[in-house]
């Protein structure tokens, strides 16, 4: 008989995703979302980025960067909906949408990173 619910697993994903998001996303978002578009820093060329992404280590890095934060979002947003909007009675729907979304994003990331020539 299971001693405890599987909620521990989702919390683990949330924590891992939180660490990845905290360490990596500010830098990426600052560069690609703010500094390059506003012209503060010269953006890298298409060729340079493509060469970088082609490396296996970069693909793994980007996969982790795209996948774990989505699971972090899924768990946190689920509880924000429970507490913020008091919709805990819809928990099956919310659970499916949140984790389903994270799984979809993970699959898309895996597909894209696998297929970058």
């Amino acid at each position, binding site marked *: 008989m299971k001693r405890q619910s599987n909620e521990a697993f989702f919390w683990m994903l949330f924590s891992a995703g939180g660490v990845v998001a905290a360490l990596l996303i500010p830098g990426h978002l600052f560069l690609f979302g703010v500094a390059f578009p506003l012209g503060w820093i010269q953006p890298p060329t298409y060729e340079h980025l493509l060469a970088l992404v082609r490396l296996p280590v970069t693909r793994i890095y980007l996969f982790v960067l795209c996948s774990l934060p989505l699971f972090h979002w899924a768990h946190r947003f689920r509880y924000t909906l429970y*507490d913020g909007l008091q919709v805990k009675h819809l928990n099956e729907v919310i659970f499916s949408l949140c984790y389903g979304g994270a799984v979809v994003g993970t699959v898309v990331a895996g597909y894209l990173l696998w297929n970058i020539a």
Partner: protein
Amino acid sequence: MSAVNRETIKTTAVYTEFHPRWYRERVSVYWWLGQWQYLKFILRELSSVPVAIFVVITLFQLRALLSGPAAYARFEHWLRTPGAIVLNVISFFFVLLHTITWFNLAPRAIAIRMRGKRLPDLLVAAPNYALWLVVSVVVAWFILR
């Protein structure tokens, strides 16, 4: 037997306890607006949404990379539109909020003991910030090289 049982029932005092009508207040849907600390908490939790938005934008970026230089140029052009810049600047502040609250709260979850005494929170948070700085510099170096 039944005669004995009837005797037992008769001698047992039966009364209804007085139960005052309790007042239960329904928690409002706007509970999080009632206190500054609650609002700060909800903002912190909502920081997960810009995190997810960043991932979605990154996926579009990867798709553009996959599709060729013209597609990537169109993606970069989209990033320069005012709407995208506003979105990303706001997201950046929320992502920063996530990072800072995450590192500040992490020491409470991990009780590291050395020589019997628990390490002070600052000593557990500081290496996280240092790691963040190092990782950001390394990643930036690879991107900008």
